[in-house]
């Protein structure tokens, strides 16, 4: 019963995470994963990024993005393992691994963005 009641919640996290990831992650990865490392545009100064990251709105947006995107991963990867690799008999282990991983990642993101900056 508990599993059935949790399903709408993880589905909601999955869809909002999919949307947040689609809207915001590509531009961040284009800049920090490709444009700056390849030297097409000089990377911004650390002081500028620090003041940007310390803005309360940035913290909230980044934390929301991290948490939702991690739960999006957890939910989708769970079903990838079920269907793609036919591991449904390991259901309990996979659920603990996926959502547990997302929880740990979310806690880490919360610490880094709220306490660490």
């Amino acid at each position: 019963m508990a599993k059935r009641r949790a399903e709408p919640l993880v589905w909601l996290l999955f869809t909002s995470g999919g949307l947040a990831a689609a809207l915001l992650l590509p531009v961040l990865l284009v800049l920090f994963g490709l444009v700056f490392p390849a030297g097409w545009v000089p990377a911004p100064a650390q002081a500028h990024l620090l003041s940007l990251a310390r803005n309360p709105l940035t913290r909230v947006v980044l934390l929301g993005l991290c948490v939702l995107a991690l739960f999006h991963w957890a939910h989708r990867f769970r079903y990838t393992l079920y269907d793609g690799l036919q591991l449904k008999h390991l259901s309990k282990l996979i659920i603990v691994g996926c959502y547990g991983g997302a929880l740990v990642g979310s806690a880490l993101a919360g610490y880094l963005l709220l306490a660490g900056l």
Partner: protein
Amino acid sequence: MNARYTEFHPRWHRPRMPVFWWAGRRSYLIFVIRELSSVFVAWSVVFLLLLVHAVSQGGTQYQQFLNLSSNPWMLALNVIALAFLVFHAITWFNLAPQAMVVHLRGRRVPRSAITGAHYAGWALLSALAAWLILG
């Protein structure tokens, strides 16, 4: 005869599927690639948190992060991740009208308008983020 009931493997009724059942047909392959994009979504979050941590630790650590990100292996990984992220975004936005049925003044908002709104939001947020980061 073993009559034990197994929840997900009613072996007597269903033939076993090969593990790589999705490799044979294009539409199945695209489905699995879309599912796998989630791994790269998680990777981008990890990469983003590494950046946040480096920025919070000071100039030296930030420079170390920049060096790490320009390592050829890291660059290659991020280019692949980027391809998966863009694939995720496009498939997500194109599916949005199937998930959202919006009615305005009693009439259904056309599917193209919902997809278009998502792409416009994507462009707007990307431009805003780039503008903020590049300062």
